[in-house]
C-alpha cells in the first residue's frame, strides 16, 4: 500500500544528508533552516544598505542650513522609509535570520518545527518591500508622515497609502509566522535533557521576543487597517468630527510600538550574553536573573506605551502612571548590565571582533538607556519631545544596540557557518570605524536636541549648523565603513584559514560541538546532553 512506499521515500530522503536541489530553485523552495537563515541575512543586509542610503540622503540635506537637494516632501518620505525599512527590513529579519541558523543548532533540533511555513515567512518579505519601496514612485509620492504613520497626516497620502499599508500587513504576516515557528521549535524540539533553564540565552531571549511579536503584530495590523478604512471607506476611527480621535491611533500604534522596541533589542541581549562569557572565558554571571530580567522587560513593555505620547494632552494620572512604569524598566535592564559587567570582572578577556561589538554594545546601549531615562521624566519630556535628542536616544539603542549586536553575532558565528575564519584585521577596522563614527554621527545630536532642533525637518536655524555638519560627516564615514562588512563576509565565504569546530577557545554550547562549516543537516539524532558537560551553558551560579 502507498503508505509504506511513501514513508520509505521520506526516509531515504531524510538519510541523504547533502540532498539539495541546484540553482535558484533550491533557494526559492528550500525548507532548510540554514538556507532560510542565509536568505534572511542576505535580505537584511540588502535592506540595511537601502535604508542606509536614505539616511545618507537625509544627512546630505542636513549638512548645512537651507534646502540643498531634496524637496521637503521627498525629505519626509526618505525619513519615513529609512525608519520603516531599517526596522522591518534590516533589524527584524536580521534577528530572524540568526534565529533560523542558530536556534535549531543550539537546542539540538534537526530543523525548525514547521519548515514549509519557515520558507513562507521569508519569501513574503521581498514582495512586501517591493510594495513598500515601490510606493515612493506612485502619484502623490511616498508616505511622508514618519514611520509611526500618525493620522491625520498619514491618511492624506496619495496612491502610496494602500501600498504601504498592505506591505505592513505582509510584513506582519511574515513576522507572526516566523515567531510561531520559533516558539514551537523551542518548546517542542529541544534535545532531551535541555530543560528551559539550561537553554542558551539567545534562545531564551528569542522565545520571549517571539511571544511579543505574536502579541503585537496583529495590533499593528488592526491600526493600519483603521487608517485604510478611514481613508477609503469613510470610517471615523481617527476623525473627531465623527466621534473618533487621532490620539487613539497613537495609543493603538504604541501598544504595538513599545513591545516592538524590545523585539528589536531582546535578541541582541541574548547575543551579548553569548559573546561576553565566551571571550571572558567565564560562565555568564547570573543566568537565572538574566532570564527573569528578560521576562520582566517583556511584561513591562505592555504597560509603558504612552510615554511616547506625553505631550498629546493625556490626563495627569496617565502621565504619572506611564512615567513611573517606564522608569521601572531601568531595574531589569540594570540587572542585565550589571550581570554582563560581573561576567567581565576578573575574566580572561580577549578582544576578538565579536567581543569588541559586544563591549561597544554594553557601553553605548547604556548611554541610550540613560537618555531614555531622561525622556521618561514626563515634565522633562515636554522639552525633549520631537527634538534631535529623541533621535540621538533611539539611535543609541537601535544602532549601537540592535545593529551592533547583529554585527557581533555575525562575526561570532560566521566561522561556524562558512568553515573559514574571516580577515580579523579588516573586521577590527570595521568595528573601530563604526564605533568611532557612530559617536561622531549621533553624539552631537544630543546637543542639537537639547538646544531645540526639531526632528523630521529638512532645514534648520543657522545656530544648529556646526553640529549638523559634524553629524553629517560622521554619518558619511559611518555609512562608508559599512561597505567593509559585505566585503569581509564575501572573502570569508570564498575561503580563508580553516576554522576549528569550537572556533573560539572559550565557546560553550551545542553549536560548537558541530563541525565547521555546519553540515546541511545537523542533529538528525538529538545530542545526548548527559555526555556533554559543556553542551548547553550549564550555568554555574549555584555552584
Amino acid at each position, binding site marked *: 500500500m502507498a503508505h509504506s512506499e511513501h*514513508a520509505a521515500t521520506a526516509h531515504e530522503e531524510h538519510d541523504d544528508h547533502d540532498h539539495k536541489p541546484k540553482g535558484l530553485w533550491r533557494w526559492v523552495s528550500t*525548507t532548510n533552516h540554514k538556507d532560510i537563515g542565509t536568505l534572511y541575512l542576505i535580505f537584511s543586509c540588502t535592506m540595511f544598505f537601502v535604508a542606509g542610503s536614505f539616511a545618507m540622503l537625509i544627512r546630505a540635506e542636513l549638512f548645512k542650513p537651507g534646502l540643498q537637494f531634496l524637496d521637503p516632501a521627498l525629505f519626509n518620505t526618505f525619513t519615513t522609509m529609512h525608519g520603516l525599512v531599517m526596522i522591518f527590513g534590516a533589524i527584524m529579519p536580521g534577528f530572524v535570520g540568526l534565529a533560523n541558523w542558530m536556534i535549531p543548532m543550539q537546542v539540538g533540533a534537526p530543523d525548525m518545527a514547521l519548515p514549509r511555513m519557515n520558507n513562507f515567512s521569508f519569501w513574503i518579505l521581498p514582495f512586501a518591500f517591493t510594495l513598500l519601496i515601490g510606493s515612493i514612485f506612485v502619484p502623490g509620492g511616498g508616505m511622508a508622515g514618519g514611520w509611526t504613520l500618525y493620522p491625520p497626516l498619514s491618511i492624506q497620502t496619495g496612491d502610496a497609502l494602500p501600498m504601504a499599508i498592505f506591505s505592513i500587513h505582509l510584513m506582519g504576516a511574515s513576522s507572526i509566522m516566523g515567531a510561531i515557528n520559533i516558539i514551537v521549535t523551542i518548546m517542542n524540539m529541544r534535545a532531551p535533557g535541555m530543560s528551559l533553564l539550561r537553554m542558551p540565552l539567545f534562545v531564551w531571549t528569542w522565545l520571549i521576543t517571539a511571544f511579543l511579536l505574536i502579541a503585537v503584530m496583529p495590533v499593528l495590523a488592526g491600526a493600519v487597517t483603521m487608517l485604510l478604512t478611514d481613508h477609503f471607506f469613510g470610517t471615523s476611527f481617527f476623525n473627531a468630527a465623527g466621534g473618533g480621535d487621532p490620539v*487613539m491611533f497613537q495609543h493603538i500604534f504604541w501598544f504595538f510600538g513599545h513591545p516592538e522596541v524590545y523585539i528589536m533589542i531582546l535578541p541582541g541581549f541574548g547575543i551579548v550574553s553569548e559573546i561576553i562569557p565566551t571571550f571572558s572565558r567565564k560562565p555568564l554571571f547570573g543566568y537565572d536573573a538574566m532570564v527573569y530580567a528578560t521576562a520582566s522587560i517583556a511584561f513591562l513593555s505592555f504597560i509603558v506605551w504612552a510615554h511616547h505620547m506625553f505631550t498629546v494632552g493625556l490626563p495627569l494620572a496617565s502621565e504619572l502612571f506611564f512615567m513611573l512604569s517606564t522608569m521601572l524598566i531601568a531595574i531589569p535592564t540594570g540587572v542585565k548590565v550589571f550581570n554582563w559587567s560581573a561576567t567581565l570582572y576578573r575574566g580572561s578577556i580577549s578582544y576578538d571582533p565579536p567581543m569588541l561589538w559586544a563591549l561597544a554594545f554594553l557601553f553605548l546601549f547604556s548611554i541610550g538607556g540613560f537618555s531614555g531615562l531622561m525622556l521618561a521624566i514626563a515634565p522633562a519630556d515636554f522639552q525633549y519631545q520631537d527634538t534631535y535628542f529623541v533621535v540621538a536616544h533611539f539611535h543609541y539603542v537601535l544602532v549601537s544596540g540592535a545593529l551592533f549586536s547583529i554585527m557581533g553575532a555575525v562575526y561570532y558565528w560566521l566561522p561556524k557557518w562558512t568553515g573559514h575564519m574571516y580577515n580579523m584585521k579588516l573586521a577590527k577596522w570595521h568595528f573601530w570605524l563604526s564605533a568611532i563614527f557612530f559617536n561622531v554621527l549621533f553624539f552631537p545630536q544630543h546637543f542639537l536636541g537639547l538646544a531645540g532642533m526639531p526632528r523630521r525637518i529638512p532645514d534648520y536655524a543657522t545656530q544648529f549648523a556646526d553640529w549638523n555638519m559634524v553629524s553629517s560627516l560622521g554619518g558619511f564615514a559611518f555609512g562608508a565603513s559599512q561597505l567593509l562588512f559585505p566585503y569581509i563576509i564575501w572573502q570569508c565565504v570564498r575561503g580563508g584559514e580553516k576554522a576549528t569546530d569550537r572556533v573560539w577557545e572559550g565557546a560553550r554550547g551545542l553549536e560548537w560541538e558541530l563541525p565547521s562549516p555546519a553540515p546541511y543537516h545537523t542533529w538528525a539524532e538529538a545530542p545526548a546532553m548527559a555526555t556533554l558537560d559543556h553542551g548547553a551553558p550549564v550555568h554555574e551560579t549555584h555552584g
Partner: protein
Amino acid sequence: MATHTDSDKYYLPHGSPWPIVGSVALFSTMLGAVAYLNDWLGGWIFLPGALLLIGMFFGWFSTVIDENQHGVYNREVDRSFRMGMMWFIFSEVMFFAAFFGALFYARRLAVPWLGGEGVKVVNRLFLWPQFSPGWPSNGPEHLGPRAGGSFEVMPAFGIPALNTIILLTSGVTVTIAHHALRTGRRGVLKLFLAFTFLLGFTFVSLQVHEYGEAYRELGLRLSTGIYGSTFFMLTGFHGLHVTIGAIMLVIIWLRTLRGHFTPTHHFAFEAVSWYWHFVDVVWLGLFVFVYWL
C-alpha cells in the same frame, strides 16, 4: 489507515513550491487591491491573485493531508502543529483586541472628551457646544447617510440574540461531534459536524440580512461616525472569521466522509474546533459590548 508513525525521526519536508506560490498570490492580490482602491484599474484585477491564493491553500493542504494519511508524521510533529495552531489563534485574539480597544477608547474617553468632560471642557465651550456626548454616537458633526445624521442601532434582543443562540448551539454540536469521533461513532460525527457548519452559515446569512437592514432602514453604515465604524469593523471581521471557520468545517466534514481521522489522531479536526470556539467567544464579546451594553 495509520495516521501516525512511531518513528523517532521528525519529518522534514525537502523543498516545497507552495510558499512561493503563496507569496506571489498574496502580492498580486494586494497589488490588485491597490490598483482598485487607487482607481488605476477595475475591481476584477485582484481576482487572479485571489484564485492563485485559493489554489495555494488547496495544494499546500493537500500535500500535508496526504503526508499525514501516509503516516509520515510522528507525535512530535503532531505537537508542533497543535502548538502552531494555538499561537495562531492567539494572534487572532490580539487582532480583535485592537478593535475592541478602539471601541472602549471611543466610548469611555474620546466621545466624553469631545463633549467637554473634565479638563477637556474647552471642547464644549468653544468647539461643539451643541454636542451631547453619549453612546451610541456618530460624533459632533453627526456623520452618516441621513440628513441631520440620525441613525438607529440594531436592537440586541432580535437577530443578534438569535445569532448568539445559533453560535452557542454550534459550539455544542461540534463538541458532540468531537466526542463521537473519539468514541468511534462515525455516523454521529458526520451528522453533528454537518449541523455545525449549517449553523455557521445560518449565522452568516442572518448577519448579511442584518447588514442589509442597517444600510437600508436604520441609517447605520460604515460611515455613521465612530459607532458605524466600530460596529461594522468588529462584526465584519468577526463575520469573515465565521465564514472562514465554516469553510474549514466543511473541509473536515468532507474528510470525515472520506474516512479520515481516527479516535486518537485528528489534529485537523481539533484545530478547526478550537478555531470555531474562538469565533464563538469573540461573538460573546461582540454581543455584550457592541449590541447589548
